[in-house]
């Protein structure tokens, strides 16, 4: 769809008309217009998903401050959105014809928007911030047909967060395989404490984790050539059987609880491992765990085990990419803002606002003394090392990906939204249903969905 700037005159008259109607409402008595429709000031809208107040403040004080000094006519308006809200909000904004100028995107959304011609290439920005220094785990994720359509803001590994002290006491190694994991769980189950807990949100248990399971068991969402779903493949069936066994080691109410509940349960000693964790958990540990236990001797990341058909356990790399829409009003200013964002001094402060969770995307910075000279990174160095080990061992894939090539699939958002996979997982784990039957059902639904969406390539 070619981009047309909104024509001002009919819009104003319509607004007047509606405002006239609204005036009956006595809106005037409230002393202000009922709605913010358009802005007279030139405003650069920037959306991102780093909601921590300190992160918002750093962005405001560094890149935004300099940008506004450089471009006096502009105001930058940053909006920090909850991760789960991002997709819906963005699509709604796109539909309403007023997307932000610069935004975070989940990599699983990017392909979908790229194929609809909604994104702008940004090769120049990427070259100017140092193309070759960008870690290969993220560099080419938004590289389509020879051009870059996005750049990752920072990398955050996900993994289990375990009570290391409990496992050490049992003399057990970190699990390599599903079987190891089941043994570990059995050993860690004690009176009044469950071995682990998964987050109940569909987004996680029905999309993020299933992608990890498939990736760690030699499976994939769809066939690489035909895009036919692979939800009842051997890989998936093995996974489902494992999950059914695994489920005995967590609280039965888990599917009604949230990710944050699992973090709280870990910090307060109700579980020995939280299934989904990232370095953000450090913040919760430092706030909610007993005071003498707020350290890496007690709480440590643990990488995922792999399935019988896989070679190495995989987990999700949390890292949205910056993107600029083709409808963006001020694309050049958005690119300019990005250059400031990645300016070393500013970027370091950004990464330090939630240390380790926001790991820099530049290889040169990973062991840079300036980056490591942060109190929290010093104290939780072991967590940073898990991150480095995972990157080195290729054990991370972007959220929702089963293979690196999934970056070209334009239907992952819909697959997630349909809760087809989530239903399968819930029925098998919580409902105790037969894995084969549920997998077949999910397969049928997924085939129908892709057909309805016009992505059927198989026959």
């Amino acid at each position, binding site marked *: *769809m070619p981009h047309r700037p909104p024509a001002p005159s009919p819009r104003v008259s319509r607004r007047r008309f509606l405002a006239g109607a609204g005036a*009956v409402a006595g809106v005037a008595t409230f002393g202000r217009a009922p709605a913010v429709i358009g802005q007279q000031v030139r405003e650069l809208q920037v959306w991102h998903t780093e909601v921590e107040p300190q992160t918002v403040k750093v962005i405001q004080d560094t890149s935004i401050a300099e940008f506004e000094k450089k471009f006096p006519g502009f105001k930058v308006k940053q909006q920090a959105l909850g991760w*789960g809200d991002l997709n*819906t909000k963005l*699509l*709604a904004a*796109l*539909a309403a014809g007023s997307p932000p100028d610069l935004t975070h995107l989940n990599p699983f959304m990017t392909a979908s928007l790229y194929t*609809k011609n909604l994104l702008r290439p940004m090769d120049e920005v990427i070259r100017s911030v140092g193309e070759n220094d960008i870690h290969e785990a993220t560099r080419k994720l938004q590289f389509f047909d020879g051009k870059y359509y996005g750049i990752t803001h920072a990398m955050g590994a996900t993994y289990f967060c375990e009570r290391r002290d409990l496992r050490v006491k049992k003399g057990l190694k970190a699990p390599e395989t599903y079987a190891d994991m089941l043994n570990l769980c059995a050993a860690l189950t004690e009176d009044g404490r469950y071995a682990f807990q998964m987050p*109940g*949100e*569909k*987004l996680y*248990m*029905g999309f993020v984790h299933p992608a990890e399971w498939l990736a760690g068991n030699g499976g994939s969402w769809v066939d690489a050539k035909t895009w036919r779903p692979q939800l009842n493949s051997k890989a998936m069936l093995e996974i489902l059987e494992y999950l059914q066994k695994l489920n005995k080691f967590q*609280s*039965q*109410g*888990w*599917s*009604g*609880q*949230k990710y944050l509940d699992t973090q709280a349960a870990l910090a307060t000693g*109700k579980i020995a491992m939280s299934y989904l964790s990232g370095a953000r958990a450090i913040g919760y540990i430092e706030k909610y765990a007993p005071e003498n236990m707020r350290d890496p001797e007690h709480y440590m990341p643990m990488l995922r085990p792999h399935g019988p058909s896989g070679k190495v356990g995989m987990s999700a790399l949390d890292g949205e990419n910056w993107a600029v829409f083709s409808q963006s009003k001020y694309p050049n200013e958005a690119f300019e803002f990005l250059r400031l964002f990645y300016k070393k001094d500013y970027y370091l402060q950004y990464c330090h606002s939630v240390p380790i969770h926001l790991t820099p995307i530049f290889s040169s910075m990973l062991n840079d003394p300036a980056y490591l000279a942060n109190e929290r990174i010093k104290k939780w160095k072991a967590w940073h090392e898990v991150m480095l080990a995972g990157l080195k061992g290729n054990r991370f894939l972007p959220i929702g990906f089963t293979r690196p090539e999934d970056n070209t699939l334009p239907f992952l*958002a*819909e697959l*997630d*939204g*349909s*809760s087809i996979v*989530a*239903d399968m*997982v*819930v*029925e098998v784990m*919580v*409902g105790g249903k037969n894995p084969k039957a549920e997998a077949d*059902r999910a397969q049928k*639904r997924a085939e*129908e*969905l892709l057909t*309805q*969406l016009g992505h059927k390539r198989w026959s």
Partner: protein
Amino acid sequence: MRTSPFVGWLLLAPSLLLLGGLVVFPVLYNIWLSLFDKHAFMPVQTFVGLRHYRYFASDPEFWTSFYYGSVYAGATMVLQLGVGVPAALLLNEAFRGRNLLRGVVLFPYMIPTIVAVILWKWLLNDSYGLVNYLLVNAGAVRAPVAWLGPDYIMTALIVTSVWQFFPFVVVTYLARLSTIAPELYEAATVDGASAWRRFLHVTLPQTASVLFVIVLLRSIWMFTKFDTVWLLAGDGGVSRYIRTLPVYAYARSFTYLQAGMGASLAVIMFAMLLVATAVYFRMFRSEEVFS
């Protein structure tokens, strides 16, 4: 009084404009949309005729959500009457503090759904909830119950909804009760009828028409209830077990991003209500309900 039809229409115009523009037009547009394959947010659409309707006829998800929706609407309906009618009868008696109680009873109905839902989530919380604490202490259960887990989520939903909506039954029923002429009861009392028989032979016939309306409206509203259901399970995997038709319709449009299919679900729901209402009218009565 001298009046001109033109001014009459003019005064009515704002109402008609709003209702026509924002209700009738969307309803018609919805029917039209249900014949298309349309992405929720992208501007492209292709005509597919009745394909969505044929699809849903054999879609197990549809029938599951129809089942959950009917269980939910049926159970909450019966319980709202079961709690609301006796409560209204009580509030129709004379006793001290009656007016205060009449006011207080309305509170659950007046607070926002989000508050009702969060409040019940807190009461039913499996670790710290008051309900589990009381049950365990009374020895009714041995271990805390996962009320918001898959086995009991429907129960939790029904409890929350009944608590939230029974005051509607109270108010509406009470309004009619208070207009029953006292002579009718006096005659019955003289005849020596027990309280139960007085209810059966005087109250019930007198309030039949209001009961008719209550059942009709509440069934429709419970069958199309969205926010309570959606908010209780949130994004949780457990929402599988309370995915009623309105939630499924919403999901098709806003998370599957298939607006055309979402629209056809809305049309199907409306058709179901229309048929059910027609049958209901035919079964029980045909006139003077809304007079």
